[in-house]
Structures are given as C-alpha cells and as structure tokens.
C-alpha cells in the first residue's frame, strides 16, 4: 500500500528547547488569570503582543534571514503556534501575515516585494487580511467578480470582498480578482494584487458576528489604484497561487486547538480529584483524540520540512480537527454546560458559551469541510495506487 505520508515524529532537543522558551515567555507575558483567553485563531488583535513575539523571532517565522526573518522550520512554527493557541494568546494581529502571507510573498513575490513586506511582517509591524471571498464567490471561489482593469502603470480594482477578518485593523490584503475575461475555463484570467487597506477608494463596513463581536468586514473597492509593483506573482496565475496559499492554512494547530483552553479551564474549575465515570469518559474521549490529532498535525509540518507536499494529509487534519472541535464543544456542554452565558461567573463557562455560539464557523472558515473532502477524495486514489482509475 502506498498510503499516506503521516509518520510518527517527536520533537528534537532543540525543538523542545524552543517549546520551553515559549512556555517561559507566556508565563511572564500572560500570567494565568491576567487575561481572558481567546478561542484559538480568532484571537484579540494586539499589535503590542505581536511586537513582543516578533522580538523573540516568532512572527513571520518562515521568512529567510536575508529578508529580516528568523528562517525557522515548519515544526518550529508549529511549536510556537501550539503554545500560543493553547493559552488563548492574543495573536490576532499578525495571524494571517505569519501563517500565509509571508510564505506566499516569499514564493510568488518579486525581490522588491519581499524586501518591502517580509522584514516588516517579521518585525510584527505589518498585518494582512485575506481578500478571497465575495458575495457570489464562497465555496466556488473561481467565481470572483472583482475586476482589475489596466491603467497607466497599474490596475484599477472594482468589486466587493466579504468575510474579510480584521480589515478594519490590518494594513494590507491580497485580493484575488479577474484581470481578463474567462473563455471557457473560469480558473483562467485570475490574478492576485497586494492592496493597501487605507488606499483611496477602499470602504470598510463591519459585518457583526452573531455574538456581537467585530472580526468580519465587507470591503468595497471603487477604482482603487494598484501599481504594477504590487502585482503578486504572474498576471493570470491567480488560481494556482491561491490554491498554494490555501494549503498553508490547513493543517496547523489552529484547526484543532480552538477549544483547548476552554477544556483546560473547565477541568480546573470542575474536576477536583479523580473524576466520576461519566466525567472520566468524556475527558478520556477528548484526550485520546487530541493526542492522535496533534501527532497527525505535527507530522504534516515535519513532512513539509523534509520537502514533501502533504496536501491530502493537510486536508484530512483540517477536516478531522475542526469536526473534533465541534464534537468537543457538544461533549463539554452536555457534561458541564448550563444555558450558555457570555456573562457567566467563571472563565471556563464564558469560554464554553463563546464556543457554543461561534463553533459552527469552525467547519466553514477557510473553506467548508464538504468542499475540502471532495478535493481530498481525489488524492486518495494515489494513496491506494489507483491513480489511473479516473
């Protein structure tokens, strides 16, 4: 059997040292009880915290030294992200820039773009949003209607992006747009432009989340001028580039740690001594899955560091991880939940209320699990030596 590239791996001594360093940093910077923990990656936007992380070399971790970055491995980034998310740290400001923008600019950007953006990202001073979804382009991303038309020395952008997290707080976003009409194949004629969120012609309107919080925005672009030097990669290759970018965001700890801190807080608040049978069953079921999922996720990072391209594996981790997060919310709520209340007296209860309310988004963000499985199913043929079967 050809099988997957999932391989059991453990941290090396230097990786363990990094983990210990991050734990020590968190003990000083975020002592328990001094902050309200966030639910994973939809975290508080704190430029100050991002800056302090950057000072340690933990933002833009993939950025090479020649562009002012720490040039760390995928496993190193896994370790930092794991420790931050499990503590519910306020990593919202640099999140997208660190996870996907920096590697994307490194891969497709010009030298000038790398020099302009990568050092700033690694310094924790330059924050990005994602400019993909549109009102009529959700799962069917290639249906984007935002157009860029040729002007003198650049492009004029017109269209509307939605679900743009942090657009009201970040500096830039990378916009997927149509630069030429598609003749038949709608995946052709798409391009990516790096766009200043403060440029003339940009209008940012909040889309309040169902719990009243403000992450999402609608970004309306009217004749926004984007100079040629901010075209990312090749004109007309936007679809291929965007798919490469999406692969970065699939398999990390953000896909299975969103509710961890809630679990830990509830355990601290509710379990004193050996748990009873029903409580033990719930804790045991959650712990077993955490353990195996973490190892699958770590394995993807290790494979990437070895030069592999574990696309199907990454999709599987995202699917398993996000469903686990939701199952966990249901199990914890079933065991311990009263009526969810954002004003509950304890941290664990407040986090659980937030998780109950926002959990349905976990299997939507970054692409629905259903679409993800359809993509992954094609890759399974290779795993089972059936590549010619289609």
């Amino acid at each position, binding site marked *: 059997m050809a099988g997957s590239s999932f391989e059991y791996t453990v941290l090396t001594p230097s990786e363990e040292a990094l983990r210990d360093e991050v734990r020590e940093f968190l003990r000083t910077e975020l002592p328990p009880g001094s902050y309200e923990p966030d639910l994973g990656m939809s975290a508080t936007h704190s430029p100050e915290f991002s800056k302090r992380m950057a000072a340690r070399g933990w933002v833009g971790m993939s950025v090479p030294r020649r562009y002012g970055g720490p040039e760390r491995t995928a496993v190193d980034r896994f370790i930092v992200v794991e420790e931050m998310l499990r503590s519910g740290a306020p990593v919202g400001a640099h999140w997208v820039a660190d996870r996907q923008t920096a590697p994307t600019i490194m891969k497709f950007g010009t030298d000038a773009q790398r020099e302009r953006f990568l050092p700033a990202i690694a310094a924790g001073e330059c924050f990005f949003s994602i400019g993909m979804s549109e009102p009529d382009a959700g799962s069917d991303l290639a249906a984007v209607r935002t157009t860029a038309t040729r002007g003198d020395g650049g492009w004029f952008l017109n269209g509307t992006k939605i679900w743009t997290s942090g657009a009201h707080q970040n500096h830039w976003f990378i916009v997927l747009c149509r630069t030429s009409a598609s003749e038949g194949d709608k995946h052709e004629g798409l391009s990516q432009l790096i766009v200043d969120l403060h440029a003339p012609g940009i209008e940012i309107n909040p889309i309040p989340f169902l719990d009243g919080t403000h992450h999402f925005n609608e970004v309306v672009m009217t004749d926004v001028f984007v100079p040629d030097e901010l075209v990312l990669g090749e004109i007309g290759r936007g679809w291929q580039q965007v798919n490469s970018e999406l692969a970065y965001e699939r398999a990390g700890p953000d896909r299975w740690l969103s509710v961890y801190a809630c679990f830990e807080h509830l355990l601290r608040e509710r379990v004193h001594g050996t748990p009873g049978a029903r409580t033990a069953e719930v804790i*045991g079921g959650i*712990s077993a899955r955490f353990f195996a999922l973490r190892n699958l996720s770590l394995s993807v990072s290790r494979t990437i560091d070895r030069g592999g391209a574990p696309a199907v594996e990454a999709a599987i981790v995202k699917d398993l991880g996000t469903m686990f997060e939701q199952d966990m919310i249901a199990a914890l709520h079933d065991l311990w939940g009263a009526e969810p209340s954002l004003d509950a007296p304890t941290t664990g209860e407040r986090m659980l209320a937030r998780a109950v309310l926002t959990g349905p988004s976990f299997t939507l963000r970054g692409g629905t699990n*259903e679409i993800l499985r*359809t993509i*992954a*199913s094609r890759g399974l043929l290779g795993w*089972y030596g059936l590549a010619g079967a*289609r």
Partner: protein
Amino acid sequence: MNPVAPVAADPILLDTITRLFGDTCSHEVVQAAESEGWAPTVWAPFAETGAPWIAVPEAAGGSGGTLADAVGVLRLVGRYAAPVPAAETGLLGGWLAAAAGFDLPAGPLTVVPGRPEDDLVLDGSNLSGTAHRVPWAARADLVLAIVDGRIVAVDPNGPGVEIVPVRNAAGEPRETVLFRGASARVADAPTGVDASALRRRGALARGALIAGALDRVGEVTVGYANERQQFGQRIARFQAVAQHLVRLVSEIQLVSMALNAATAAATVGDAAFEIASLKVLAGDAGSEVVARAHQSHGAIGMTQEYVLHQLTRRVFAWREEFGSTAFWREELGRLVGDAGADRLYPLISQGSAALA
C-alpha cells in the same frame, strides 16, 4: 521527560509475513477456520518463520526482535484476518512465560485475558475456577494466567481442565476454560508484570490487529468505489460517496498514528496514556469506519462471499477484548483527571513521558 522517537519494524520481516499471509490466508481458508476453529495451513508456515515468538527474548526460547517488530506482524495478522493466535503466543503468553522463566512449548500459547466474571483460585500448585474468553484454548500447548499476582501455566489438554467451545463475532475461538484442581506451574511475577500490565499489552495487541484490519477496509472500500459504476460513472465520483471515503480513511489515520505512538512509548515504559488512547480510537473507528465502509459498498458488503465482513466482524470482536472502548475511555479520563489541569497539555503532547 519527553517522548521517545519512533521505532520501525524490520522491513524484511514485514515483507516475509506479507507474502506468507498473502499466499495462505485466502477467503476460503479464513472462512473454513471459522467453522473448524483452526487453520493448520496458516499456522504451520507462520510458526516456521518464528514470527509468533517475536519480541520474546531468545534466551527465553523466543525469536528475539523488538516490540515494534511484533506490533508490525500483528498489524499484518489483522490485515489478512489471519486465523492464528499470534498475540497470544508472543506479546502476551510468551511475555508471561519469559517473565516466569517457564520453557516455551513448540506450539501456540494462550492467555487468560482476565474478565470480571472469572474466579480462578490457586491452591498450592493446583488451579481451580472458570476463565472466560480464552483465545484458541483448545489449540494451545499452554494456558498462561495471572492469579493472585502470580504467573500460572496449565496444560489445557491435561487432567482437571475442561474447555467449553465459545466463539467471538468473527468465529474465532474464545473458549470458557474450567479448571478443577488442574496441575499448574507457578512463579512469582517480576515487577511490572501484573494483571493491568497484561491488559495493557493485550490492548496494544488488539489495537494493532484492528489497525491492520482497518488498513485493508480502507483499501478495499476506496478500490470498490473506484470500480463500481452506477448512473454511468464510478460511484467514488459522487460527492456523497467521496465524503464517506475521506471520512473513513481519516479515522484510519488516527488509529494508525495512535498505534505508532503507543508502540514507541511501550518500548520504554508502560505507555498507559498512549495505549488507552489507541484502544479508544480503534474502538471509535470501529463504529465510524465500518459503518461508512458498508454504506459505500451497498449490499455486496453484507454477503459472506465478499471480503469486507471478514475484517469488519473482527474489528467488532477485537475492540471488546482486553477492555472495551468505554472501559479505556474511562480509564484514560481518570488518568488525565488525576494528573490535573496543569499537566493536561503536557500529557496530550508528550503522552506518558509527561508523567515520568
């Protein structure tokens, strides 16, 4: 402490056993073993390779080799639904015999798994009482058990032993053995060899068998969905079926990862956290994977002539042995609860090593 690096099984050994089972474990042979309770055409060549005694030290009469080798072989036993007492002879019975310093007989061994309803008592060197769900008891040269914390061995064909035939859901012998003052060899158990250690090793062994069976369930199901045509195309192209395939293969990856992590941990320690996790995930996958595999197959998967049931019935049987899914879930929850919230993440990320 931090978890130990992965340990790989000997690839030549795995190749040999893959070929051996591929040649000997035909659909008909596996079916016949279910009615006859034994498959001499599989056991004989398997024993010939020495593989049943892997991980039992050579000094104790075993074949030597690592725990990872033994787990690798068991995974293949599961994959081919091979009707042989491999775990019982090596990882479990061989381990007990070696710990006790008993000579190994030429044939297979078995162990008393230790069910709550068992009532074995030792009077000097005479064993009495009833042991339940003893695998292939009638075919074993020696039955090993832990009674009152001591290691006991009895010849099941000797006087004072009666074997009542019982089979599991996969038609494998899981007999009730009645001892009436049967003559037993008795030895003190060294530290680390006790009833809960036996249950953990049993759970690791069953986890390996289940992982192997699920490997093949995945292969068979993805293969079938890419051959079977309905509405003029391969059914794997339908989104509803594709979702089943990805979900079932994903659950198999979880079990496989848990097995590899548990094997590494059990090489150096008791692996209490990892083995409990493995058995929980293998049991859960038993529901999820089996259901989706059958659903993807349609009616053909429910027939005796098609291979799927040889695997899925074994998964249903094996996941109940050496502690059910619910048993291990609770056991794991108590372990985690006792460790407390401050050690929760170290446990999840480092496993048993976090408790050392």
